[in-house]
């Protein structure tokens, strides 16, 4: 009798009942949509916070009646307090980085489409998958709780019963005031360090720790699924670049989130258990010496945080890069230029991303020799990024471009990624970081490359995959309108930030009026705010389009875009087990567009070799020649 290493999976029936189908679902497709909805909710919070920030910077001291109603303590008389502003800065960053940029691209689209694109019927561990979403959701709830713990006096007093220093709340802010980076000692000393630094910080740390666990569960699933569940013929080098991106992102998450978790635990212990991991001795805060702490190193937190923090920014961008490659190729009707180089570049960016964290710390007081090493490594990450950019341009060269909304956003991604990434060459040099560290030049760089380019990747993915997920098309006209205003808008917002940086404008300033050297930036500040308000407002069009089209959009067929990968072979929306029990078989690479001799200008991955196609190809075409030789 032969050894059995595999068994037939008994086809389980789709779940019945609302709860099993839509709430506690084990189906990766439902979980993917749940992540997307979480991101769509979180981003509203983040966006509103940023608009409030802009309003405070442009018109300081103004009475905003809505604030007086909602936050009487933090904005007395409707005028935002400085601590309130800083808490907006902190929560904006935390919400956007974690609950938008680390959920939708990976947990959202990755969860939905990785299994389908590799020909699997679900993720490797569906129960863990469900848990990863709900754990992440609980993390979000805890962060929202921080808003109430600090913003509402009653809730704040309740928390203060848990511990006067570390749990004091009700300060009137909407959370901690230490920035999303939460450097100690400011974040470790409790309420004596400032408003929002009591319960706000504790809940912030707990929220992030919970998020770490949710992310790790997700990463586990992605890696195992990709390694173990690819269908017949789906070799690694036939996977769509989206899969490579999700895979690399999962590895980055797997290895970086535990470090953040470790740091968070140490910070919590410093705050609540009297340890001194990060708090040195001899401190004098708010008129009194700080007893009980000695010998800790604030730099230790920075190392732990940025060891996580730098891979995190690649976690935010890599799925967008994967989606852009995929969508560019699809609507250019042309194979991706240099598939192998693209895979290499994704990996190189991912791996190098672990060795450059010190560039956030050049002037922190760490060893200047290590700064030199970090600086040189940082500029080398520019090389694989440049390779990707060249290859995107190469994909468009000689193409036959169809300007659908997803394509517009994908092209927008390339433009924004170049704009944002290129200033990394400035900031990565130690001698230049002397000036630019903690100025708006840094804010310009990371918003363009991580904030905006990533979001464009997500928009492109949304418009592209919406028909598959919901069986209906999003409205093209609304989509194009959304694209145009947003594209011009984000440039209008973030390019001027570079100028502010060159003037020397520091980050995280609640107001600019105290310094003469900042006075003539006011026209820029105003221009940016107007652009921000318009751009934020136009996102309503996207929301309307998204939810309206779900019910009333034009019905979509299986393959409205004439794309090639496995998800376009199945109904829109897909059945519960994706492939209706029929195992897909893959015969070719993922970007076989405009193959000479083929009847249509695209060949699906599942299309077997046709004799005449094989003959006309000879031994393989193009200089890349991938995907054909197996």
């Amino acid at each position: 009798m032969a050894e059995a290493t595999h068994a037939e999976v008994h086809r389980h029936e789709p779940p019945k009942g609302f709860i099993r189908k839509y709430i506690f679902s084990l189906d990766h497709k439902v979980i993917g949509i749940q992540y997307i909805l979480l991101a769509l909710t979180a981003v509203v919070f983040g966006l509103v916070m940023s608009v409030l920030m802009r309003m405070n910077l442009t018109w300081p001291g103004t009475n905003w009646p809505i604030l007086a109603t909602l936050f009487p303590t933090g904005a007395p008389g409707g005028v935002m307090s400085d601590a309130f502003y800083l808490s907006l800065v902190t929560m904006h960053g935390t919400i956007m980085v974690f609950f938008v940029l680390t959920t939708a691209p990976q947990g959202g689209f990755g969860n939905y489409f990785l299994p389908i694109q590799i020909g699997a019927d679900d993720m490797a561990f569906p129960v863990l998958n469900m848990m990863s979403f709900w754990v992440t959701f609980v993390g979000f709830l805890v962060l929202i709780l921080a808003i109430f713990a600090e913003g509402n006096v009653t809730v704040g007093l309740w928390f203060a019963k848990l511990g006067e220093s570390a749990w004091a709340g009700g300060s009137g802010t909407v959370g901690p005031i230490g920035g999303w980076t939460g450097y100690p000692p400011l974040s470790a000393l409790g309420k004596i360090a400032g408003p929002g630094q009591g319960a706000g910080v504790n809940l912030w740390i707990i929220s992030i720790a919970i998020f770490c666990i949710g992310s790790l569960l997700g990463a586990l699933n992605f890696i195992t699924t990709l390694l173990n569940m690819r269908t017949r013929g789906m070799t690694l080098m036939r996977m769509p670049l989206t899969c490579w991106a999700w895979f690399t992102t999962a590895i980055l998450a797997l290895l970086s989130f535990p470090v953040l978790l470790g740091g968070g635990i140490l910070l919590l212990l410093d705050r609540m258990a009297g340890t001194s991991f990060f708090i040195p001795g001899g401190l004098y805060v708010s008129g009194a010496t700080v007893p009980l702490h000695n010998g800790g190193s604030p730099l230790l937190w920075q190392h732990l945080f940025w060891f996580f923090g730098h891979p995190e920014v690649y976690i935010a961008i890599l799925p967008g890069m994967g989606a852009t490659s995929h969508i560019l190729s699809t609507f250019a009707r042309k194979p991706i230029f240099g598939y192998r180089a693209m895979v290499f570049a994704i990996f190189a960016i991912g791996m190098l991303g672990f060795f450059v964290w010190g560039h956030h710390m050049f002037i922190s007081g760490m060893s200047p020799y290590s700064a030199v090493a970090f600086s040189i490594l940082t500029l080398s990450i520019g090389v694989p990024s440049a390779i990707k950019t060249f290859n995107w341009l190469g994909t468009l060269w000689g193409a036959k471009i169809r300007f659908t909304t997803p394509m517009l956003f994908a092209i927008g991604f390339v433009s924004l990624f170049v704009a944002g990434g290129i200033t990394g060459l400035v900031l990565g040099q130690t001698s230049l970081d002397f000036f630019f560290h903690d100025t708006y030049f840094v804010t310009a760089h990371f918003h363009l490359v991580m904030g905006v380019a990533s979001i464009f990747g997500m928009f492109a993915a949304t418009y592209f995959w919406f028909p598959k997920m919901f069986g209906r098309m999003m409205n093209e006209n609304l989509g194009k309108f959304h694209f145009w205003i947003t594209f011009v808008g984000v440039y209008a917002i973030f390019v001027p930030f570079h100028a502010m940086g060159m003037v020397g404008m520091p980050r995280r300033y609640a107001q600019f009026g105290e310094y003469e050297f900042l006075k003539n930036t006011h026209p820029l500040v105003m221009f940016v705010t107007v652009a921000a308000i318009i751009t934020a407002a136009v996102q309503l069009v996207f929301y309307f389009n998204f939810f309206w089209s779900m019910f009333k959009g034009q019905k979509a067929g299986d393959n409205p875009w004439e794309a090639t990968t496995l998800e376009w072979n199945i109904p829109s929306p897909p059945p519960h087990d994706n492939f209706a029990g029929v195992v897909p078989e893959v015969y070719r690479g993922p970007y076989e567009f405009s193959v000479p001799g083929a009847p249509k200008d695209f060949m699906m991955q599942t299309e077997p070799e046709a004799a005449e196609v094989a003959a006309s190809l000879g031994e393989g075409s193009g200089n890349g020649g991938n995907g054909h030789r197996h």
Partner: protein
Amino acid sequence: MAATVTGTEQVIDTTVGGGLRSRGGNGFPKNGGGRHDEGGDSFRFSADRYRIGVWVAIGSILMLFVALASSYIVRSASGNDWQPIAMPKVLWLSTALILISSITMEISRRSLKHQRDAGYGRWLLITTALGLGFLASQVFAWRQLARQGAYLASNPYNSFFYLFTAAHGLHLCGGILALSYLLLRTTRKRRTVEGELRRAGAADAATIYWHFMDGLWVALFFLLFFWK
């Protein structure tokens, strides 16, 4: 005919850690992905997913301890308050218990591989008991330190001692839960091939995890005892 003493030939392939190299083509084969051999129209289940999954999980847990260990080393050099204390002797017992438990776990796993269900269950129970004994010895060590007045915040060395042992203990609890789950399932042999594969895969994964907990303890032991 051809019956062996145990009555059945080996039906289930449960190579520990060798999943990536096992026949059946998962990992990085040239000709196809992870789940299909010759022919077959329906999706197939491979127990390798549990093995791969546990190695991936180990990667992340290892990173957590690497982060804490680096912090330990950095912190020992900053400030002038690093005062290592004498480690409670009971920790040698902890080490012995966990090392033996790895052996018993391995015996258990091999019993399953050779279809000896009774042996599988028995050695699984012994391993679980040893694991609980390990945790008890840890609690004993804590109480001993507390009696000496060495608390979490007394000095940074103490902080790390409690932190490392707590973090390790917590993850070991997870391992004990996994073993308990396996114990519950030893009483029911699965009726389908898929069920048996899952059981074997879970046992393999739990074993790998258990050995990792053992190795991790030894590493922490060395760090706490010898890096001062």
